């Protein structure tokens, strides 16, 4: 069995699966259930100053796709709506009862040094392992100058991170908002401010749907809707890209990353870790299925690591980062073409129509003498775009196979068609 124990900026947990700061980590009752189920740690739902905020009724929206529920998820909930001292008391109790689990406290207070100083002191007394600065919440709090309103201004990120390092012994994780043009701005600012880690992504500003009877965005509160934060499986590719961006940035080197965004199974965790995340945080999957899903996350990651002969997550941590390059670095002399396994083909014709209507007309629709359909790749026409493989409903029926062009590696930077090409040195 592989060793899944995790050390994230000095915070130890039995596995790399933490519950993200969100409703599942709102209070002692939920967190204890999560720990009993096997979660490695939690980021307690964001604490704020008293008087506590108030939430509305009707809080979540979701996207169903082809019968799959909660392919995307959206919420308009705010930070904790319970008094600060209640949360702090419970955090202290839970950390005492579950010393082997990671207890991170998420925080959001106004951008004033004194406010941060005050709350940091109180959190420290709980003996929590670390703090996460909520610079990501895209609704409700941002309008009050907190959450993503801070995360979108690198100078604020740096300033608050610095206060936190200055006034607390706890490791500082800065949670980043994806609602920004360049994620490296706030990430580098966090590094400059001395943060130990960033966690990302927080939710993406979204309107999940319009109720066509009410003519209002959902979730609908008494006939009105507001933008919320989007998360769940649908956002994973966006999160993975941003994690990779920071992981390969020299200026961010040495700063840990906690991967968040659509992690639903062990597979996404493996992807995030190989892309440079030290661990992952989960919310939507737990809200959809309950805490039990962590069992398969742990066993799935374990079994995959065993088969790959990885002993610890460190063995594949950042393994994909060197291969995440800019487009101009891709080999223009590489060629791959599609191949259809006729024994697996079910003759649905989806590859044909996709290629014929929308791509390169490189699949022939044929009929044999018995009238049976047969689809064949026209090798000379195929540009290796992968579309047929993606639309094919049968696994491994269409595969992409590299062909030897006999040409060496050459990228766009030296390509004759590139007006800005770099001439090879004489």
């Amino acid at each position, binding site marked *: 069995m592989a060793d899944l124990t995790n050390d994230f900026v000095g915070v130890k947990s039995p596995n790399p699966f933490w519950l993200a700061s969100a409703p599942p980590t709102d209070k002692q009752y939920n967190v204890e259930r999560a720990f009993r189920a096997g979660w490695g740690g939690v980021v307690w739902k964001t604490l704020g100053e008293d008087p506590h905020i108030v939430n509305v009724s009707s809080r979540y929206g979701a996207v169903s796709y082809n019968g799959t529920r909660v392919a995307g998820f959206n919420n308009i909930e705010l930070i904790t709506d319970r008094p600060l001292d209640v949360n702090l008391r419970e955090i202290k109790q839970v950390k005492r009862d579950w010393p082997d689990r990671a207890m991170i406290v998420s925080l959001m207070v106004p951008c004033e040094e004194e406010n941060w100083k005050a709350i940091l002191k109180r959190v420290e007394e709980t003996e929590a392992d670390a703090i996460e600065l909520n610079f990501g919440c895209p609704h409700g709090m941002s309008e009050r100058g907190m959450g993503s309103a801070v995360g979108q201004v690198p100078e604020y990120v740096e300033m608050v991170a610095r206060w936190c390092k200055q006034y607390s012994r706890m490791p500082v994780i800065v949670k980043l908002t994806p609602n920004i043009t360049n994620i490296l701005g706030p990430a580098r600012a966090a590094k400059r401010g001395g943060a130990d880690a960033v966690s990302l992504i927080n939710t993406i500003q979204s309107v999940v749907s319009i109720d066509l009877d009410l003519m209002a965005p959902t979730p609908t509160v008494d006939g009105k809707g507001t933008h919320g934060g989007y998360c769940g499986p649908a956002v994973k590719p966006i999160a993975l890209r941003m994690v990779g961006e920071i992981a390969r940035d020299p200026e961010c080197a040495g700063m840990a990353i906690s991967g968040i965004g659509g992690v639903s199974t062990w597979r996404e965790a493996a992807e995030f870790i190989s892309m440079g995340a030290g661990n992952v945080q989960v919310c939507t999957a737990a809200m959809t299925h309950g805490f039990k899903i962590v069992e398969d996350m742990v066993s799935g990651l374990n079994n995959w690591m065993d088969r790959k002969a990885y002993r610890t997550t460190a063995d594949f941590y950042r393994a994909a980062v060197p291969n995440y390059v800019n487009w101009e670095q891709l080999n223009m002399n590489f060629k791959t073409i599609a191949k259809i396994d006729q024994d697996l083909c079910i*003759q*649905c*014709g*989806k590859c044909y129509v996709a290629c014929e209507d929308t791509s390169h007309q490189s699949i022939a629709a044929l009929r044999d003498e018995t009238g049976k359909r047969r689809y064949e790749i026209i090798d000379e026409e195929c540009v290796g775009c992968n579309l047929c493989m993606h639309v094919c409903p049968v696994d491994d029926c269409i595969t992409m196979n590299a062909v030897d062009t006999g040409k060496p590696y050459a990228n766009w930077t030296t390509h004759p068609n590139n007006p800005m090409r770099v001439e090879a040195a004489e």
Partner: protein
Amino acid sequence: MTIGSDIAPGRLPRETLEDNFGDAHPPLNKQQALIEASRCYFCYDAPCIEACPTSIDIPSFIKSIATENTRGAATTILQSNIMGGMCARVCPVEELCEEACVRNTAEDKPVTIGLLQRYATDDLFEHGEQPFQRAAPTGKRVAVVGAGPAGMACAHALAVNGHDVVVFEAREKGGGLNEYGIAAYKVPDDFAQKELAFILSIGGIELRTGHALGRDVHLPDLRREYDAVFLGLGHTGVNALDLDSGAMEGVENAVDYIARLRQADDLTDLHIGRKVVVIGAGNTAIDIATQSKRLGAEDVTIVYRRGVEHMSATWKEQEWAQTNGVKIKHWAQPRRLIGWPANGAAPAVKEIEFEYTQLDEQGRLMGTGDTFTLMADHVFKAVGQTFISDGLTAELLEHEGDMIAVNDDRQTSLPDVFAGGDCVPGMFLTVAAVEDGKIAAAAIHRMLTA
């Protein structure tokens, strides 16, 4: 032991009978339909369309269900097949669209196209919506003989194109086999009449029931009075069985009994034998056997003179009968009926003697000489139906075998007379009859507007 024939009504309580003759295959609810619709791959050049005799654009209507455009789905179906609702219930989909579904290849579980088609069409009927609009009147008049699937499909398409249609039907109600021949649990809630009413609601179609060809109306008159004639006469006779010499109580044609059952106001009034033997191998044999069982018959046996691979009933129909407790025996042919002692009156059947059969070296069916007998209070003959051209004797209508010969347009040897459904060579399915009516209507329309 019972002495004498045991044919009795009310073998089961009324509630049980109502359950037994309710929907045999309940409709999909919305969630089931959406999940099932999402299984459709939306194939290019979809094999299911090719397998449908009416060429319904199945992937498109299923896609419409998936997007909750159910009205659009129903319209797509009905444009190709005006009896899409009935066909959704009675089509042997396991040998048509669903057999062709590419999902079979990988997982042996086709998209349930029939149930989805029912979901869409039921929804339209429940909303009472009319997706068609009649064209401006053409002033042309067409006579349709027979208000079954072929005749009504033809009438509807003609009416949509602005022609006026009079449909002559020999029976008291329209619908043909949909009304009189299909097993009751396939079309509960008077669906055949509801569908007929929907078809008539387009306007321009006058249905005259109680008008039989050759008795009340005659083809020469129709040809004189109308611009064109369509004959959708159906199967008007049943094949004979050697046993027919010497009538015996309790022996009857399956189609007659099914018609009585379909028209029965109260199923507890229907008489059925305790022991039932059905001779035949088609869907009518399956229908009478299963319905007998569901009426409370204790033992029901289908006996067929050939093997399981020769049965014309689909595998699904055979499974359905067997699941209902019907026994199917192969390779035996009936030889003689044995009656109870009778004093003067026709004796009631007591037993039926069968001879085992096999194929000889030339592949011909032959008796082996060995016999067995089955006890039987009720014997149903279901050895096939046939077209009898009684009403047409005076006409010079060319035949192909026993049936009316037609060309690809379903035009007979008389240029203004068209025919379709079970009175012409073909598949003898509701869906094929609808296609015949549709094709003939298109040809008639072309002819009348040329």
